[in-house]
């Protein structure tokens, strides 16, 4: 093994990969949420459909999409490798253990929370991404905006969120995501060695606020369409 593979196959190195990809995925959440806000414009989905068309055809976005997939792949792959390693590090557990006395629930259940998010991600892609991009899973309706034909992703959103089961899945998944981020956001900075009394208290507070606000922003969308539209 050369120094590069040695670095990123050590437990400390793999965590660096987890941290970098995790923070990158956080930045994706921000972009995704800002885009979603177009759903709230009272224009029958015109702005949202134009926006989703832009996201589907812009070269820079398409390139970043590949990076995004790689971000998920590395984050999930290293999580699996590390989880197996961590399980093997304690083959026999305790009969009586009180971890709640020394650590937060979310910090101990990142794998469980991540699995909920992964299942959600698959459902979410199947709902919207697969029909929009690949015309699979029923495809999308068409809509005319100023004599040009666009995919009507907006109507797919409205339709999906009439289903109470989907609404429940989305809201529960966003709660899982919030807990995942409450630990993950500040943990990522620690993993990168970015810890100092000057800015660590800010990162910790910002991380909690970020986690709650972003996930609340996402969770409001299915609730809005279910109850108000």
């Amino acid at each position, binding site marked *: 093994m050369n120094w590069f593979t*040695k670095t990123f196959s050590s437990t400390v190195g793999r965590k660096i990969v987890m941290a970098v990809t995790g923070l990158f995925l956080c930045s994706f959440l921000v972009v995704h949420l800002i885009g979603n806000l177009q759903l709230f414009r009272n224009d029958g989905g015109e702005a949202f459909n134009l926006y989703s068309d832009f996201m589907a055809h812009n070269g820079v976005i398409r390139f970043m999409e590949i990076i995004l997939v790689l971000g998920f792949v590395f984050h999930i792959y290293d999580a699996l490798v*590390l989880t197996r390693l961590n399980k093997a590090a304690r083959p026999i557990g305790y009969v009586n253990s009180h971890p709640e006395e020394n650590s937060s629930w979310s910090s101990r259940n990142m794998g469980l929370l991540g699995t909920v998010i992964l299942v959600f991600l698959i459902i979410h892609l199947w709902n919207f991404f697969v029909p929009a991009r690949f015309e699979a899973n029923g495809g999308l309706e068409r809509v005319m905006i100023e004599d040009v034909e666009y995919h009507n992703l907006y109507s797919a959103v409205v339709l999906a969120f009439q289903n109470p089961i989907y609404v429940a899945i989305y809201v529960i998944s966003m709660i899982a995501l919030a807990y995942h981020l409450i630990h993950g956001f500040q943990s990522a900075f620690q993993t990168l060695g970015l810890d100092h009394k000057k800015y660590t208290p800010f990162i910790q507070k910002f991380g909690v606020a970020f986690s709650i606000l972003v996930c609340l922003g996402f969770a409001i969308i299915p609730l809005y369409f279910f109850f108000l539209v």
Partner: protein
Amino acid sequence: MAGSNPNAKPMDLTLKVWRQKDRNSAGQMVTYPVKGISPDMSFLEMMDVLNEDLLRKGEDPIAFDHDCREGICGMCSLYINGRPHGPERGTTTCQLHMRHFKDGDTITIEPWRAAAFPVHKDLVVDRSAFDRIQQAGGYVSVNTGGVPDANAIPIPKSIADKAFDAATCIGCGACVAACKNASAMLFVSAKVSQLAMLPQGQTERKTRVENMVAQMDIEGFGSCTNTGACAAECPVGISLENIDMLRREFIYAKATSESL
């Protein structure tokens, strides 16, 4: 200070203790009643009382690690009621007193659990993995000569204090026992950062962190997921800041060291 209290009522307790014949045997929890325990006894003295009782009955006494019984050697261990070194913070098992328990309590006592700390017998685990990590780089090998005059080597007080705080690690392994991943990061980081902060440690600064982390992985400790359980349970209060420093040292070493 809580001194000896002649009026303290002796306690009767039920102990559930992990018994295991040797490395290759399967173990199990065994229940023992103990009677007339003074609240002024240390936890280990309570174990002594139980062992004397077992010896009188011709049974095998419970094996557990201990040495100085002053909280400075790092030999005692024990996972007591679901916590390393018991329920009190900043306390080794030898300094844990029975006044923190109540008459009639049931107390579970288990060994440290980690693949890298195999159980020798009963509550005794083999912590030589820590020694091998130390041997991989937890030292200064340059000849430092005679004792220098005081303050001849300039070290700011804030750095000296932090290095000393890291140096107080007694290597007991409570961090590993507390961590859900059985990670040794708090121990390794205390050793790495202690020497990385001092001028004497600069010569081997890069190889030290590279070799100690590599040895930590070889020994089969888990990865650190920043739960903070280690620092919360550490009897001498080693801070999580050391782990962050280890990461900085690791990244710096990997980016700049000579080893390919």
